[in-house]
């Protein structure tokens, strides 16, 4: 069930340049299931900005009724969100969408998690759940630069973790694909979230493998009603088949939708 709830800010801290970690508490957490689901956040009670902001769930703590998001403060909405302090209330709609299927991999098998920039956060809850069920996880995290990187240690605690930065200031210089080129990494299932060019590169490389990609799109409603976030389906001769990223996704099996 999707809920709308004024959730309590338990903590908010800046964890890297422009990157904030926000923990919220409320009953909506009870509904959270799969890693990779997201919430739609109203960043202020007024009309400026008007629309909610979709943000992935980065970590869930059911016992405390809390969950955490990690986001980049960039535009109007996320900047306002970052000004919230402990004790404030934030209007959250969620949990939304379908996340990464953790039961598509067995205990003892190996999952490769590849994240780029603000695509990294949902992989953290995924890594936690996979490890919990006995699946080994390897992580490749790509960032622009060292000062915008985050959660390297948290991921390292769960499994082998490679970092790539575009400017080479941390880990491998270049993209996550450079890490793949330079290391021989074996895995059973791939899970990834990040910018479309990255996802495209992975799609080419891992065509035919078992893999799940989380996509992004500008959203209106976030629940499937407005047709803002639609994608073409691959292998559709009619050109009229589609999925909605908000309600059918954001996670899809590799090759299912046309990346644009």
């Amino acid at each position: 069930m999707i809920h709308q709830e004024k959730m309590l800010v338990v903590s908010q801290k800046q964890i890297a340049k422009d990157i904030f970690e926000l923990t919220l508490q409320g009953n909506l957490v009870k509904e959270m299931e799969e890693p990779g689901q997201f919430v739609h956040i109203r960043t202020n009670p007024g009309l400026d900005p008007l629309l909610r902001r979709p943000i992935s769930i980065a970590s869930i703590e059911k016992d405390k009724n809390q969950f955490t998001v990690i986001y980049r403060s960039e535009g109007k909405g996320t900047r306002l969100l970052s000004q919230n302090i402990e004790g404030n209330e934030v209007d959250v709609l969620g949990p939304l969408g379908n996340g990464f299927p953790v039961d598509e991999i067995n205990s003892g098998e190996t999952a490769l998690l590849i994240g780029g920039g603000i695509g990294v956060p949902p992989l953290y809850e995924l890594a936690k759940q996979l490890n919990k069920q006995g699946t080994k996880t390897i992580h490749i995290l790509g960032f622009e630069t060292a000062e915008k990187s985050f959660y390297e240690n948290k991921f390292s605690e769960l499994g082998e973790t490679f970092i790539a930065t575009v400017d080479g200031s941390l880990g491998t210089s270049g993209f996550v694909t450079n890490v793949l080129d330079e290391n021989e990494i074996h895995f059973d299932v791939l899970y990834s979230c990040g910018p479309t060019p990255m996802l495209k590169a992975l799609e080419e490389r891992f065509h035919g493998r078992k893999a799940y990609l989380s996509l992004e799109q500008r959203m209106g409603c976030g629940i499937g009603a407005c047709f803002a976030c639609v994608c073409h389906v691959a292998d559709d001769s009619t050109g009229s088949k589609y999925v909605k990223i908000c309600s059918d996704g954001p996670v899809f099996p590799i090759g299912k939708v046309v990346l644009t």
Partner: protein
Amino acid sequence: MNRLQIELPGLSLKNPIMPASGCFGFGKEYSQFYDLSVLGAIMIKATTLEPRYGNPTPRVAETSAGMLNAIGLQNPGLEGVLANELPWLEQFDVPIIANVAGSETEDYVEVAEKISVAPNVKALELNISCPNVKKGGIAFGTIPEVAAELTKRVKEVSSVPVYVKLSPNVADIVGMAQAVEEAGADGLTMINTLLGMRLDIKTGKPILANKSGGLSGPAIKPVAIRMIYEVSQKVNIPIIGMGGIESTDDVIEYFYAGASAVAVGTMNFTDPFICPRIIKELPGKLDELKVTHISELTGRSWKMYGAKANHCS
């Protein structure tokens, strides 16, 4: 007595609040939040003859107190709507207003004829903001004669009353309203979106893949209020008002301007519970205003305070 009950051509509304077309899909998603039977009516997403995929993405962009959309009328097409969407909606005790769109008169006529016989469709809403392919892409809704002709053709085949949805992108909204009234429209819905655009600051590229789109949300409310104020004084058919409604006060303002019912569009996205919330708040508001029935408010702005002067800025 139900203080919110409104009778309009074809529509017996338990209250005057309904979601606007395109902002509520075919109801399924919002039925997760509340019982759709509480609504006065539902204006479903535009239906075209054939299924449409719509425009490439991005299809939405935010603006100050508003948003742009260029969805491109994505919908499952007449057959899909008749086979799946409308039957599903029959479980609710709520009249459906079917939004009809097309690129040629013939499309409208065929959709109107067939959709108007569905048991829960109680009225049609003609979306005339669409580009008219035969007239070189100029919207049906910007030339009174073209809009009137379309209205007439649809009226001939429709089994239910026809409301024409006016586009605000015209110099003379009253002339447009009178033209479609004369052509037989049973009511008006207004306003559709204003044409707008946003460009990406880093690249200069239009944010919408379609480049321009329709501006909706609170930003456009003053334009809608002005148009309804002008039109309601000059026509004898009822108006369902819309454009930026975000509160119960806004609903009252639309009634004062001359609306007999209202629709909420964009704000469903920000607040999925907005329609039931307003429905719940309305009786208290009527008490505050000391009126027995909401219909007493319709047109108060001009009935009590006289007509309009000219303006120059």
